[in-house]
């Protein structure tokens, strides 16, 4: 690959992710509105929010680590996007593979955790403690699923995993080959989004939005950007693992939005679990399904 081409890809991939991510945020809010018989926000609402937050005149910082935390939260995802192949662009997906991607996806949350920590607000700290607990809950089924997929494909290289699925059309899709794993993956993915009923670490009425409690202006704006990336990454990862990635941008985006629509639609119908219930749920059903799925694969 020509270096210039690579550089363009590396720039484009996060950019695309951001734009698509904003649309996903919009979709999420629209779905929520529809479920609640509301009209919902206008099309550019995510953009308005981000611009407004960045343009705040006074912004409160609790110190350098607070700043760095936001930088890491955004930067980690920007880096992670380059490992996530999209139609026509593979970036450096072959140099890292899915395990690296999984780890890179943890960096933003941990960067955020650092930043929140320095805010010296116990609400934030409790939020982080819960977020990490939630991570412990959903990552276990998630890695089982990823193990199953990677083992079935015989590689950890996402490009190859996608290629394997695209080789035989619809029949070779991960979701068709490994339906049990796909279901487990969907549940884990839903939990990893941190939406209801799994939003234990935001819990506005209880811990005042947890990690975001001391975030003002561009700090909150950074988190909004991060949320765009998060939605994008999660759904695209799922599409890449189970739905054969995308051959064209159209079906790629269609799949991504559809996949995301499932958990989002469920989310706004439920209240919140308690932490231990989330753990219990995650360690029971998706893990069980995942293990059954892996047993099929082996």
């Amino acid at each position: 690959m020509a270096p210039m081409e690579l550089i363009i890809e590396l720039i484009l991939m996060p950019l695309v992710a951001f734009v698509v991510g904003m649309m996903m945020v919009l979709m999420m809010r629209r779905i929520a509105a529809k479920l609640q018989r509301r009209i919902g926000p206008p099309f550019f609402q995510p953009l308005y929010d981000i611009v407004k937050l960045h343009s705040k005149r006074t912004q409160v910082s609790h110190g350098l680590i607070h700043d760095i935390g936001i930088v890491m939260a955004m930067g980690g995802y920007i880096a992670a996007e380059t490992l996530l192949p999209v139609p026509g662009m593979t970036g450096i997906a072959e140099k890292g593979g899915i395990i690296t991607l999984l780890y890179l996806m943890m960096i933003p949350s941990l960067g955020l955790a650092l930043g929140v920590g320095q805010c010296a607000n116990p609400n934030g700290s409790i939020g982080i403690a819960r977020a990490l607990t939630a991570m412990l809950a959903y990552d276990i089924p998630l890695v089982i699923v990823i193990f199953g997929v990677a083992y079935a494909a015989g590689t950890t290289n996402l490009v190859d995993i996608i290629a394997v699925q695209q080789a035989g059309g619809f029949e070779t899709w991960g979701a068709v080959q490994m339906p049990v794993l796909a279901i487990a993956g969907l549940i884990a993915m839903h939990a990893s989004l941190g939406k209801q009923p799994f939003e234990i670490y935001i819990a506005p009425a209880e811990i005042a939005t947890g990690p975001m409690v001391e975030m003002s202006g561009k700090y909150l704006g950074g988190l909004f950007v991060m949320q765009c990336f998060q939605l994008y990454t999660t759904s695209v990862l799922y599409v890449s693992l189970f739905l054969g990635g995308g051959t064209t941008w159209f079906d790629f985006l269609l799949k991504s939005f559809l996949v995301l629509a499932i958990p989002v639609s469920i989310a706004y119908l439920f209240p919140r679990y308690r932490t231990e219930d989330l753990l219990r749920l995650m360690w029971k059903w998706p893990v069980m399904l995942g293990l059954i799925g892996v047993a099929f694969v082996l």
Partner: protein
Amino acid sequence: MTLTPLDELFLYSGITVLVALLLGRRLPAGWMVTILYGIQLLALMKMAPLGYGGEPISSALTFEVMGQSLSWRFDALSWYFALITLGSALLSSWYACGEWEQRFRQSGGNLWLFHLAMTLNVFSMLILLASGDLLSLFIGWELVSWAGFLLMAMAGGVATKAAMRYITYAMAGAMAIFGGIALVYVSAGSLQYEAILTAASQMSTAHLWMLVILFGAGFGIKMGLMPFHLWQAPAYAETPGPGSAFLGAISSRMGLFAILLVLVKLFGIVNIDSLKIPFTLIDARDLLAWIAVFTIIFPTFTAMKQNDARQLLAWHGIGQGGYMLLGLVVADAMGAAGGLLHVFNHATYQAALFMAVTAVIHRTGTADLNKLGGLVVRMPLTFMVLLVGIIGLAGLPPMNGFVSKWLVYRSLLNEGMPLLFVAAVIGTLGTILSVYKLIHNIFLGQLRVEHDNVKEAPWSMMIPMLILTAIIFITGLLPGIPLAWVASVQQAVGLPVPDYTLGGVESASGSLDMIWVIGVLFAGFGIGALIFYFAGGRSKRVHQLDNYAGGHFLTADVRYQYSDNFYAGLMHLIGGWYRGSFLWLEQSVKSLVEFLSLGMQGLYRRANAEFYLLSTALFVIAWVVI
């Protein structure tokens, strides 16, 4: 007699011990010892070809005792471990010089004993690493155990208790090994490695089982493998600061070294694989792998519950040992490389972490996670060291811990071991939770009023920490450097070698190139920083009391910090699972011994000795006649 480079190393090491012994009471002793460690390291560097596939170097020193010949030699394996040993000794000792030393002395510590114990540890470890036959291995093993005991026990009080517990475990381990050696001697007729190598392939299954259990348990105790892990955390945590950095970095890895040498190299992982456990699907190797995995999980989650920073780190030290063993037991090219590489990586970040925590103790006088907080503004460099260290410990990019864990995961994936894989990931997740608690409760959150005047750690402590930090990052960026050594170790013990590059590993089924990963990550951070600093308004730093508290007015005397019972929600669910079963097991063994002891004393206290005598005589004669 000409001195080989190995002899020179021994000589310098011996001189170091002597210097510590004779001059240890004078203040510059720390510096002298540090310089001497440096010289030892240089002597080790003379043997650097070993790290790149060179021929083993023998010592001119050999003994012939009671029909046994004792010899010492260095190969790639020894060299690799010696490098880590000397490196961590050098940096820990350097760290101890200067202010730490003065404080230690003022608070009544015995500096002479400290230096002596350190030098003895290093010396005995070198002897162990150089062992050329099983007997010299055992001699080195015992020396290491007792030298470690000295270092652990020297602080007195709780430390001595912990050290006593350690030495009881260690003796049990040593005796298992001793028994194993006797069995090997009987079947191989010699304790030379070559003889054992040939004998190993012809051993009966029962015999091999026995040996695997004896040696596995013996070496496993030193490594802190489940269920023999209880001694380690208290013992390491209570050792004086730099000592715990040193012990945490390398001491229990001696167990891994011995496992590598005896179980992997001499008995051969293939032979172990052939040991099936009847009526189950698993064999001895699976058993080891599962022990490794439990060693990852349980201590890690125990660490999460600790409220003392040093205890927390020490418990993690046990857990990380599990990854090393797991990688080695999988024993394919990547797994073994991962396990071995983790030894190096673990040493670097564990030493850095212990040093950082010691620096905090040095400045604040406590390691209690409920009594600290917010120190990042007062000790930013120490914070950075700790941060880099915990990223390594948790095995996240861009630090070196990620590479070794990646290799282990990769091998589990390749070999199709889903449960082990998941268990290993659970360990990593637990580690992340636990280390966040560590860094949060010390450095983040609210700064306590009494810590308002705390200063950054002195440079004498800072520089070794920064060096370690640099090593952690550089070997994360360029894992090819240590992987070259690891590859020659793998060759030396007869394991397959992965196809490594400067930036990681090449493999048809998924490669890793850390240069790219880190490059992209930092580019991402750069872009994030650009957006953050240039696309948004100016921010203003505010005081920590200017904080959301539901409208409440915060004042300096109000502690507004979340530290205790940090993962309350998680503990709601799993809190009940901490049964202390192993503690219970340990206690019951102890109680059993106590009980038996009571009985035996009763036996001897009985006055009717004549009755014993006559009845025994009658019994024996009756036995003969009948």
